């Protein structure tokens, strides 16, 4: 049976993993390569590395970090942050990423999805969507607003129609972050995740709000998520991927248990 994936996300700034609330009060959480290896060892199904500052000056640091992290990593490895062109993506693939995650650049230039997919295959293109429910809309969930620039600016797009366009243009997966839930540890936005997952045929990765094992079980069942991503709950040993998966397996969720 196809298992539900647990994805560990590393937010990276200047070559270090950091964790903060709303990008402020950043706390150093360690070395990306060491943390990625530890998460993979503990049973994380995938590693996502996001360059949260993505400055031009930081580009070389990012590529060095990707290369170092990828060296001993034998699970799928996604890199995002500041990838604006097919040639940016190519550099990240050459450094050892299996997939790239694109967000603001895909909204600004949707044909970027096609151009990366043409050279590296659809499976290598993850379109990340940051969305917030729109209470003013007739359907606040399906019409959740899509934001760009790290959640700072509304794009004018609505979540379901943008996810469908991304799929039609050849995205391999959708990484959906609920801005309402992000950082709260109160659970994923299951309604938002289900609305997107049921509208596309490609896998949807739920992100934002992970706090307990029950939250993961919930987003797989009610949220129809194919995978779920979390960052902070892993970093400080609150929950390892291993204990999370053991508890999910015990509650009947199909997961790959680590050796």
């Amino acid at each position, binding site marked *: *049976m*196809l*298992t*539900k*994936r647990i994805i560990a996300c590393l937010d990276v700034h200047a070559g270090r993993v950091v964790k903060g609330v709303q990008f402020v009060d950043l706390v150093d959480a360690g070395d990306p390569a060491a943390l990625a290896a530890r998460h*993979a060892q503990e049973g994380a*199904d995938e590693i996502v590395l996001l360059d949260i500052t993505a400055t031009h000056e930081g580009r070389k640091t990012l590529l060095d970090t990707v290369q170092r992290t*990828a*060296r*001993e990593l*034998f*699970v*799928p*490895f996604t890199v995002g942050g500041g990838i604006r062109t097919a040639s940016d993506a190519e550099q990240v*693939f*050459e*450094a*050892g990423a*299996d997939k790239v995650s694109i967000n603001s650049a895909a909204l600004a230039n949707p044909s970027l999805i096609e151009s990366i*997919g043409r*050279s*590296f*295959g*659809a*499976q*290598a293109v993850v379109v990340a969507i940051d969305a917030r429910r729109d209470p003013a809309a007739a359907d606040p969930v399906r019409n959740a607003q899509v934001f760009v620039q790290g959640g700072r600016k509304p794009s004018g797009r609505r979540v379901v129609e943008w996810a469908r366009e991304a799929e039609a243009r050849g995205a*391999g*997966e959708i990484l959906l972050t609920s801005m309402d839930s992000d950082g709260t540890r109160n659970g994923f936005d299951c309604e938002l995740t289900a609305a997107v997952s049921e509208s596309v*045929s*490609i*896998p949807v990765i739920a992100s934002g709000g992970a706090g307990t094992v029950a939250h993961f079980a919930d987003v797989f069942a009610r949220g129809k998520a*194919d*995978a779920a991503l979390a960052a902070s709950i892993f970093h400080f040993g609150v929950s390892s991927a291993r204990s999370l998966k053991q508890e999910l397996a015990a509650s009947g969720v199909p997961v*790959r248990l680590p*050796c």
Partner: protein
Amino acid sequence: MRVTVIDYKAGNLTSVVKALRHLGADVEVTDHDLSMIGSAERLVLPGVGHFSATRLLDATGMTSAIRAAVDRAVPFLGICVGMQWLYAGSTEAPECLGLSHFSGSCERFRECGQKVPHVGWNAITPRIGSRLLAGVAAGEHVYFTHSYRAPISADTCAVTNYIDDFAAAVERDNVMGVQFHPEKSSATGLRILRNFLDWTPNGEAC
């Protein structure tokens, strides 16, 4: 040992090369050099993306060189689209012919409301006696990402179920293929690549 990886511009080879090197292989990559294929000790044909990429193998003459290598018992491993190419072809690109080393053609997963592509970790059931999958237990998980799959036949050496049963791996003499990505399948995947690197025609360890 020396391994020649064939590049036909179907995606990124970095992970495959990295995993083979991690296991101690001396890896060389070619996208056109027929003499490298002619003198290869082991061949790996990776590939993700669209089956139509395989037309470069014909256009460069690499198909004939690969066929000759296979005939002289060079161990050969196809990964993902590289495995699909070992069959007659794929409905993804009907105009492109495969090697027809294994019988049957690859087809898209049946429409039934489940998601296609099949992406993620799924269990494999290896056939007893498979040399490629020696030491891999039934139920171990490997990483898949694909929309087309190969039919089950006498040469199938592992089966996976998604929508229907399909061939997760295939093996006959020196020619092997895996639909999943061993280079991304953690310890199980590395063991399978190790088995390929240790494979010799007479069945003895290197």
